[in-house]
């Protein structure tokens, strides 16, 4: 069963990260790398995304396509990366995500194919 994990960052998380010393930042990134290594056999591909400032959104629900800068919401929470995983069921995905050491919110969505 394939799921996509969508990693969601909050403003507070970004601020807390900025406030860290270089060593704390390195440790934090190290924990993320360890997590990725530990679960490598379940990971099917994904990417960290560039900062939301770099996003371009196309809205298709108006009379004609409307292109804007910025992310899809004026939100304080943004998707900062995604990862496709292949696991047995939702409980296995939940177990994996419970130990995720990065951003504070992760959405788990089953993939269609």
């Amino acid at each position, binding site marked *: 069963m394939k799921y996509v994990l969508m990693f969601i960052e909050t403003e507070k998380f970004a601020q807390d990260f900025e406030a860290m010393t270089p060593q704390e930042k390195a440790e934090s990134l190290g924990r993320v790398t360890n997590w990725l290594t530990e679960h490598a056999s379940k990971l099917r591909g994904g990417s960290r995304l560039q900062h939301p400032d770099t996003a371009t959104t196309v809205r298709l629900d108006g009379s004609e396509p409307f292109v804007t800068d910025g992310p899809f919401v004026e939100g304080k929470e943004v998707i900062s990366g995604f990862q496709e995983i292949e696991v*047995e*069921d*939702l*409980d296995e995905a939940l177990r994996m995500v419970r130990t995720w050491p990065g951003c504070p919110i992760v959405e*788990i969505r*089953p993939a269609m194919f």
Partner: protein
Amino acid sequence: MTGTVTDELARAVRDHAGRLAASLVSMLGDFSAAEDLVQDAVETALHRWPIDGIPDRPDAWLFTVARRRGLDQLRRQQNYRQKLAQLTWPTPPPPDERLRLIFTCCHPALAKQAQIALTLRVVCGLTTAQIAAAFVVPETTVARRITRAKTKITNAAIPYRIPPDAEIPERLNEILAVIYLLFNEGYLSSTAERAHSRDLVDDAEWLTAMLAGLLPNEPEVAGLLALIRLHRARTSARFTADGQLVLLEHQDRARWDRAAIDDAIRLLTKAARRHHQPGPYQLQAAIAACHAEATSWADTDWAQIVVLYDVLLAVQPSPVTRLHRAIAVKYAHGRQQAFAELEKLEEALDRYPLFHATKAQLLREFDRLEEAKEADARALELTHNPAQQDLLQERLASGVRDGLGGR
């Protein structure tokens, strides 16, 4: 339909629907299909039993109908058909089948309302119409919740199984929370107006007793069962003949079921001995036990109740619990202290009727009558429970000095 047939079907459904669904789903591996087959069988019974009479073995009858319906609907799918044909009604049933079912229905990835609807439908065998009536929501809403939940179970691959031991306590909390919600909904709505709708307290007690049988070493399950039984033991004193709510203070304690109270307290004591840090259900049951053991309102051990609320707040902080603690503080330590506690809850409980009713009562005792009236009016505006509404209206009209607790 005659009363006997309805009662008999209700009993058969309650005792066997969960087992039926569990046995079909474990064979077919399809939660949704199994569940629909059971509901079909129940609805067929609703039409057939009044005409044909109650079968000798209602459980076997329901099973046969469910299996036949499955064969009719799915005869083109060879594999499915073979599986269904092989299926037999097991006696005695495997003990943990229903446990798998209830863990699936109460999976934390499902919305709370969906967990409730699905549990009532699949484990207790209620129809969508019965669930809708119990919660006073449109039947279409209940049907939609159930459909969405079943789709999510399939599409998001929510597993049909008992979770591994390490995950049981957390998942069990989810189940107990669902049953506790059922119990509260039933308990607060047991009014004259709803006398003809299904008694959710019955379902809550039945589910908890079943869980207690399947998980005899879980003290919180025993705690919840004791809590429900302690409240039920006092039911006959909670309402007047015409359905008016009688507050705990004024209940005729001779009408409480002493034998049931003693049983529940024994159950609670046994559970508490196994556990050094009692959880929220055992603590709430212990508070209910303090009330049940008091021979009169004046005899209530309020100091002990305040202590139990302190422990409860330490394991499960909630403004509603703090409100109940404040009420106990009034009797243990006096009005001034209780009022000071209440004032700290103003913001958190602004939309909670019992908060305003309690405040009104204290204000009245301080002779601040205008403010008391305002608080009562606010409580009346917020409550949807007819018995509470009656009580508040009466109080607003006559200025009597009573609370709204009723527990």
